[in-house]
């Protein structure tokens, strides 16, 4: 329930084995690779000088980055076209990488398959093209089907030329209106809406003129088969027969492709998977440091995976590989350990919402738990309703299990649940307050309580924010931030005193003791002088990051801002109460309209509509408002979010659909059936 511990692992192996080693690492999917040269050249890189390491030590001065990036475009093209021809769905399964293989040797065999299959595929394509051509002829001949003359004779006339052409309707109208000037017989044969098909007969000597005129009308000539003797009907019959012949030829070729498919489909799938793997390997290689015979790589691995990775590497490569394991806490400039959040399943979806703001750094305290709980509290308080909450909850579950948006579904289900709980506290079901009693309070009847309660909640949450920052600063050993800053101990005391002062002034419990204003001023002074104070205490001397004048001007205004923001941050939480009221108010508006409606059905429909509007519109607003309170009022206090996300190199394996998911689908299907 926090940020997972990391180990820094170094691997030194033979260059001849680099691909195999990387394959294993990628399959394990647990290493966040970092730039190895940065690590090797940093001064905390030590390799104990013993016999085992002697070869590696010799190479250290000669290490250089891996630069020659391999181009896989030919392999990719071949694999793609084979997948296409065989109509296979590419899949990546771990067993494809089980045996020991050399990628290039393996690909040679794939290339051979490809060249055999490719020529067949080509001739199928060629046949298909001739069929296409014949279809075009048939289509064109159909226009002449009703005429019982020999089309062969028509196209072989000596002095006249016959043509079938297509024109757009606009252009046909132009032709028609100027028909008396056209040196051709033009006969409209078919009208196809946008286009018109006409036959034209011209003396051969005027062919060119007519062609130019038709060109200016943007004509398309419809080709007819040459060398055919007989009517259009007969020609169509003949063509159809030859298409059938072609088709059976294609079938037999497809058959032989099918044979190839059954024989090699497994190999092709494997080729795809291995190619993807090789591309990944190439990507990882850019982070390696390469020597003469050895390569060095470094990466972070979660502590719980270290043994597994180590034993599988040692098991496969034995003495050929040197593995170094270091603690991630050791600080190397330029190398930040990645953050892997590890929370219980229930609040895991909220990790994404934290990451929207920033990834927690490795040393920071994971804020997800606090974030999730406070977010649920805020959302529920603003949107408390049993019915509407359940709608959110159920739709969250549906989204989570039926689509791939598990994060969104998870969040939605959680906030729905929280809303339901608050619904019971407020005694509200789909807006109506008459169905169940309120366990805690009816918002509309106790407006002052709601608003004051919201502010009180805000104060509590803000104090938690302070505590988080103090813990984080302690972990970081940051005295300045933890003790003296406005978000540290000083700030916390100042905040509590200020709230107390304002409270007693507002309630009017008499005169404030003079100690309070004095201590407030002292605390402010502490905050202004935080850097020199911390410097003195730590014994590092007084160092200003910028010039002292700038520092004091900035901190002077900072003090003013502290006072203002302490108040505004707190009052900001009043919106929690306001939205709870707003929620009821919106329903009342629809309820009133429903009462005014004349018929029962209309009022029922209005209530349904009201609920839909409230769930969609107000739900969204409250979702955003709660997020705003979290990010702006709380995260700005204690959360830095400048970490690096843990991104292990891995290859996405294709899984079979999970049984659990099917079960739920079936379960829901059953539900609908009932």
């Amino acid at each position, binding site marked *: 329930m926090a940020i997972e511990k990391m180990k820094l692992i170094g691997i030194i192996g033979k260059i001849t084995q680099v691909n195999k080693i990387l394959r294993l690492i990628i399959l394990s999917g647990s290493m966040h690779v970092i730039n190895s040269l940065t690590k090797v050249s940093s001064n905390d890189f030590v390799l104990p000088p013993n016999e085992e390491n002697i070869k590696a030590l010799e190479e250290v001065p000669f290490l250089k980055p891996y630069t020659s990036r391999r181009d896989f475009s030919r392999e990719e093209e071949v694999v793609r076209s084979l997948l296409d021809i065989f109509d296979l769905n590419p899949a990546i399964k771990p067993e494809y990488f089980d045996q020991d293989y050399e990628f290039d040797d393996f690909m040679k065999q794939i290339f051979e398959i490809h060249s055999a299959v490719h020529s067949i595929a080509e001739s199928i394509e060629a046949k298909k093209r001739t069929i296409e051509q014949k279809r075009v002829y048939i289509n064109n001949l159909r226009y002449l089907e009703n005429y019982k003359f020999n089309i062969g004779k028509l196209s072989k006339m000596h002095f006249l030329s016959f043509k079938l052409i*297509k024109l*757009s309707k*606009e*252009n046909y109208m*132009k*032709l028609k*209106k*100027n028909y008396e*000037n*056209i040196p051709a017989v033009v006969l409209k044969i078919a009208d196809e809406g*946008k286009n018109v098909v006409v036959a034209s007969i011209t003396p051969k000597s005027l062919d060119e*003129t007519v062609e*130019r*005129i038709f*060109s*200016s*009308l*943007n*004509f*398309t*000539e419809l080709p007819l088969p040459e060398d055919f003797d007989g009517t259009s009907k007969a020609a169509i019959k003949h063509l159809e027969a030859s298409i059938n012949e072609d088709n059976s030829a294609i079938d037999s070729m497809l058959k032989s492709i099918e044979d190839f498919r059954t024989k090699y489909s497994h190999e092709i799938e494997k080729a795809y998977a291995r190619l993807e793997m090789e591309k990944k390997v190439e990507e990882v290689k850019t982070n390696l440091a390469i020597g003469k015979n050895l390569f060095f790589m470094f990466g972070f691995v979660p502590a719980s995976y270290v043994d597994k990775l180590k034993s599988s590497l040692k098991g496969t490569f034995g003495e050929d590989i040197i593995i170094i394991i270091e603690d991630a806490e050791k600080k190397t400039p330029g190398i930040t350990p990645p953050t892997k959040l590890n929370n219980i399943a229930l609040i895991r979806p909220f990790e994404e919402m934290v990451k929207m703001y920033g990834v927690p750094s490795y040393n920071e305290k994971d804020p997800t738990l606090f974030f999730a709980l406070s977010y649920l509290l805020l959302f529920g308080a603003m949107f408390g309703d049993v019915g509407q909450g359940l709608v959110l909850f159920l739709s969250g579950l549906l989204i989570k299990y039926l689509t791939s948006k598990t994060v969104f579904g998870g969040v939605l289900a959680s906030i729905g649940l929280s809303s339901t709980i608050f619904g019971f506290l407020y005694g509200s079901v789909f807006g109506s307050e008459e169905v169940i009693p309120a366990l805690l309070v009816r918002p509309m009847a106790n407006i002052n309580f709601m608003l004051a309660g919201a502010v009180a909640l805000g104060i509590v949450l803000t104090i938690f924010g302070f505590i988080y920052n103090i813990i984080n600063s302690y972990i970081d050993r940051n005295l300045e931030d933890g003790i003296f800053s406005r978000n540290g101990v000083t700030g916390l005391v100042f905040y509590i005193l200020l709230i107390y002062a304002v409270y007693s002034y507002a309630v009017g419990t008499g005169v404030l003791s003079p100690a309070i204003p004095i201590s407030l001023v002292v605390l402010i002074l502490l905050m202004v002088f935080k850097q020199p104070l911390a410097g003195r205490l730590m014994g590092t001397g007084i160092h200003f990051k910028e010039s002292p004048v700038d520092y004091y001007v900035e901190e002077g205004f900072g003090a003013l801002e502290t006072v203002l923001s302490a108040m505004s941050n707190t009052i900001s939480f009043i919106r929690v109460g306001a939205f709870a009221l707003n929620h009821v108010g919106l329903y009342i508006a629809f309820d009133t309209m429903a009462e005014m409606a004349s018929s029962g059905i209309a009022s029922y429909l209005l209530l349904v509509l009201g609920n839909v509007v409230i769930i969609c519109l107000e739900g969204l607003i409250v979702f955003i408002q709660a997020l705003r309170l979290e990010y702006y009022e709380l995260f700005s206090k204690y959360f830095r979010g400048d970490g690096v996300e843990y991104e292990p190199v891995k290859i996405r394996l294709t899984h079979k659909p999970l049984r659990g998911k099917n079960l739920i689908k079936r379960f829901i299907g059953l539900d609908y059936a009932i």
Partner: protein
Amino acid sequence: MDRVTRFAAVNTKIRALEGDFLKNQHYVEMLRQKSIQELAGYLKENTPYRKLLGDINPDAVNRATLEEILRRNMVNNLDKLLYFFYGTYREFLKALYLKYEIEDLKNLARDIYNNSKSDLENRPYSFIGKYSKVSSEHVLKAVTLREFILALEGSEFYDYVEPLLDGKRENLFRLEMALDMAYFSILKKSSEKLEKGDRKIVEEYEGMVSDLYNLQWIYRGKKYYMLSPEELLNYTIDMGNRINFFKRRQLCYSRNLEELNNMARELGYGFLFKKEETGDIYMERRINRFLYYRLRALSKRYPMSIIQAIAYTQFLEFEIRDIISIAECIRYNLSPEESGRFLIRVL
């Protein structure tokens, strides 16, 4: 829909954009500049174009880059109008803008034909793919006209250019004609979907445009290209204000230029053919100047109508044309008085 709801907002936008048009004084001073760089500098220092030329070094500007900058600005401004329309009006406006896209397509086709596409750097054809479904990526990759035509597949132009793919007609002339015909045909179809009042106004304006271009086409076809009357007629735009189909046919079958000239005068378009010897080079300018005044009149007469957007578009085009003309005149060392005669705007 209520005219006010449809046009009030866009008209306000147009007024605001029109505030950036150059004034007469600007033109007079631009004509006095001695080099393209000075011209760019003047635009940058003294005119509303300063926003546009803000981070451009005037000394590095040549005619082509200047034109490209101005055209890109035009794309931006036209886009602004588009946001105010939806449905058939938006379609119409896009169809209207296709004119500029087709201009770019034709330029590209010309460059492909002349094998001079290498200076892509200078002429990135800003408009291609902006308003039509043309994929600029595909079109720009084309090396032959055939590839160019095939690259238009899927766009609204493809129906018009597809018939050219018979192996004989893949030439520049046919292609340009087909694209032009496509423009007017698409424009006509989309204008027919406007509401009645706007449809009438568009018919009047586009009819006038077609009259002028048809006359110009027939004149040029007869004088320079020796085309047959049938071909001339087939390539005319199928719209018209004073010139209907039968008048158009008469014009095409006129026996000589004298007769054509007389017929044009009877139709009230005699100004296109003034007696001067050099008349032809001014013909384009005369058409534009005539349209400029007609548009001014129309947009005054119909304040709440689509003509406002049309007029803005056209005025913006005229302004850019004039700036480019000035740039060209400067380059060929023409005196300001001489150059002034090539401008659409009367100074």
